[in-house]
């Protein structure tokens, strides 16, 4: 019985995800940006971004635009459609925990520029529930489906890249 329990525990741990299902290390020292691959971009067919578990944690609709979150950490990304074309003028919300503000309060919205790019500057991220994590969401009312992501970074990272592919 004891051996069976140890075996079950081993299986449960081996099948778990280090950062949580669907979450990637997107910090500058991590596994590279979240978003479409180079091959997808070259082929002009980008798989739509899917909301991952935890993506909506602490989400609050209608975060104010360009609310300054500090400096020292930059979240950047490009928003595209399924044909990998940039999507300008859509609202992106970013929220994360810093040393001075909790994830529930530290949030802002920005709009993508003509090339579909967005950028948010924040104080450096700190661990929240075990590791630094950054939320990026598209929540504009419009033709695109809403999408929310929770990804992680490492202590001391200075930035993260989160690209989104929107689908109708």
């Amino acid at each position, binding site marked *: 019985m*004891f051996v069976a329990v140890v075996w079950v525990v081993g299986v449960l741990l081996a099948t778990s995800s280090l950062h949580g299902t669907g979450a990637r290390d997107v910090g500058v020292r991590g596994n590279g940006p979240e978003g479409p691959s180079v091959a997808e971009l070259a082929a002009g067919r980008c798989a739509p971004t899917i909301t991952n578990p935890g993506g909506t944690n602490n989400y609050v609709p209608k975060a104010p635009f360009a609310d300054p979150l500090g400096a020292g950490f930059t979240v950047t990304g490009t928003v595209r459609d399924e044909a990998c074309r940039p999507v300008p003028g859509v609202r992106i919300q970013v929220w994360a925990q810093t040393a001075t503000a909790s994830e529930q309060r530290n949030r802002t919205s920005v709009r993508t520029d003509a090339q579909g790019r967005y950028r948010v500057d924040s104080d450096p991220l700190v661990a*929240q529930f075990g590791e630094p994590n950054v939320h990026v969401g598209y929540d504009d009312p419009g033709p695109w489906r809403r999408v929310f992501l929770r990804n992680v970074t490492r202590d001391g990272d200075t930035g993260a890249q989160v690209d989104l592919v929107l689908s109708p």
Partner: protein
Amino acid sequence: MARVGFLTAGVLGLAGLVVALTSPHLAGAPVVLVVSTLTAVAAVAGLAAQPWLVRGRVRVHTGVGLAVLGLVVVHVAALLVLSPDDALFAMSPDGPTRARMALISLVLLVVVVLLGLARRRLGWAGPTFRLLHGGFALLATVLGIGHAVLTDGALEGWGTVVLLASGVLSVAGGAAAVLRRRPARAARASGTGRATVPPPPAPR
């Protein structure tokens, strides 16, 4: 030896509290996060002490076991108050590995406490009870400490040293408890040890 073991656990617990309270992670943190962290530190110290309290201190062992379970429940409840979204996500099947370790550890801890409280009713043989109660307790301790080591927060740096030392102390306590029983068992088997069956009454 046992006294050294549980006193060491107490010293490690105090060291953990000092490390946590002086950590920048808790500077200006909400009270519930401080409570959650400190209860976890105290629970780890209790777990490290437990194997050293099995012989001759069963009442203390039972009390510490119940206290550890209570501390862990407060730890989880404080996290639920701090951020329900994150706490429920962490405890879901989609939560990260460290959270799954904590969840399994909590389930095992409940089982261990229930086994301990129901020992007499169960009527299991000593070795069977000790294997399941002690084995699950050790597993719960290792998973709980693994969870703490993988968690970025107030117990990084020296905190990790304290956690790992607590884990080693717990494993050493379990090993010591097993080894203490072996010579006695071997002596009984060879007939040189203390008799387990009373001698027959002398003829009148």
